[in-house]
């Protein structure tokens, strides 16, 4: 649709207004993170600070185990993403290409678990982890997330679209069954895998309730949980919290800017998951 000049101008004005609403909190947070504490408290009030200080960041690093949180987040989100990509695609492949007895029933069962909200399973899950004595460990944090119905369903759909002739050709050439999976199916499904990977990573990086339940020491908390709890309990000053918020957004923002298309696809997916 071609737009006239005036129409374009009006639209631009409205979009600046709406964009402002979305930009402002991020901008305010970033600017506040480099303000000295007295400016944050509004003496005097300045949106754009005239006086800069990196004090908030030094306080952040000395008072909050920020790098520990960051490391935990990386291990949790990264580990879960890698493992679940493997398991999702294995199971998805089995459902798509290797029909076995009762596979339809099993698949329906898998789909049904998609309807179950996390809140219903969280209490028993907590007790299971307690019984295994893996509360507050990476294992406990990651185990329930190692595969999920949505990932299996998604990978099944993408493997279904791969023609059987490709597998047959591989069999004739003497490739083993595992070889067919890793050397033929996986390369074909790279696009789906990366979309699903982004989705898993973002979901777990941002997840709050589960890591909060599972962890009870500072050494194990992920970024969102650690910062949120610190804000509630320990830190009296506001500046370091701003600094922490800025730093915690940066990693995911870099990935977002690098792979924006995949990201938006991944987000549309998580909508499907509900």
């Amino acid at each position, binding site marked *: *649709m071609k*737009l006239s000049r005036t129409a*374009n101008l009006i*639209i*631009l004005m*409205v*979009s600046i207004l*709406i*964009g402002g*609403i*979305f930009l402002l*909190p*991020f901008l*305010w*947070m970033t600017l*506040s993170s480099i303000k000295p504490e007295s400016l944050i*408290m*509004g003496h005097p*009030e300045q*949106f754009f600070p005239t006086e800069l200080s990196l004090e908030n960041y030094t306080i952040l690093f000395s008072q909050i185990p920020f790098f520990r949180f960051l490391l935990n987040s990386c291990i949790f989100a990264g580990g879960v993403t890698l493992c679940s990509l493997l398991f999702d695609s294995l*199971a998805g492949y089995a459902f798509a290409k290797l029909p076995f007895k009762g596979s339809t029933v*099993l698949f329906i069962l898998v789909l049904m*678990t998609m*309807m*179950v909200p*996390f*809140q*219903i*399973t969280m*209490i*028993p*899950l*907590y*007790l*299971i982890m307690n019984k295994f004595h893996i509360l507050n460990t990476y294992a406990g944090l990651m*185990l*329930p997330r190692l*595969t*999920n*119905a949505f990932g299996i369903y998604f990978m099944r759909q993408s493997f279904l679209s791969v023609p059987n002739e490709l597998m047959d050709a591989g069999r004739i050439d003497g490739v083993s069954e595992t070889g067919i999976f890793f050397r033929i199916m996986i390369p074909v499904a790279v696009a789906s895998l990366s979309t699903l990977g982004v989705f898993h990573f*973002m979901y777990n*990086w*941002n997840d*709050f*309730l589960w890591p909060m339940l599972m962890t009870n020491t500072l050494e194990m908390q992920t*970024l*969102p*949980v650690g*910062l*949120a709890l610190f*804000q*509630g309990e320990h830190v009296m000053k506001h500046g370091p919290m701003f600094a922490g*918020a800025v730093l*915690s957004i940066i990693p*995911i923002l870099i990935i977002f800017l690098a792979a924006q298309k995949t990201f*938006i696809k991944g*987000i*549309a997916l998580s*909508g499907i998951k*509900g």
Partner: protein
Amino acid sequence: MIIIGVFILFPIVQSFWMSLHDWNILRNTKVFLGCKNYVKAFADERFLNAMKNTIVYTVSYVPILIFTALFVAVFINYKFSGAGFFKSLLFMPAITSMAIIAIIFRFLLDGDIGLISIWVKALGLPAKDFLRNPDTAMGSVVLTGVWRWMGFNMVIILSGLNAIPDSLYEAAEIDGAGKVRQFFSISLPLLMPTMTFVLITNLISSFQVFDQIYVMTKGGPVFSTEVLVYYIYYRGFNVFDMGYASAMAFILFCIILIMTLVQLKGFRESEKNGVNA
């Protein structure tokens, strides 16, 4: 398979089993109660209040969210200069953790240092500490939710809009239909499947709201923002009354299940229509 079995199917059964008990891991009790926990829930004022708050949250959050997302999606669909940048900007909250956003908004709305409070004061209106006032706390939490999820839903609606063939609009233009008329006669009807999907997924997720409540208000002030999941969390993991918490989780599950079934029915119908068309 095993993981799903152990970590999803088994917990569901156990959760239901627990909901029939007085199961407190602090007092180490485990008494069979039958459905008394469910009876207790419907007589528990705090549960009913949490239910009411969840419904208030849902009926205010979902319509605001959907209308703004639809408006902005239609707007972006005009592909003006800078639309791509604009889209990315609006999408940024969706990739940020809700907990982090809640921290930022808690500061924004703070009575002393918050930008919003400072502006309200500058306008000469009575300054309020939004999150510490029972009248405004819920509204603040709702708007924070909308702010986070708007871009996300906009992207879904936008993909629905893009699926509508241009030829329809061209035909309408030849027939002399204006932009507004085109929107109501072409875009909106064809967008209905997408909108139903967006509506139901948001209904479901708003019944599960927790993160920003926990960070911003902890259910307060005076329980004015205490929603279902927060109360379940409180009962289960602060008081460790896990049987009762499971019973409430099961009530939540039933509500969500009904909504999911409605959605599945919608999916099947739209698939059928797709085949016919």
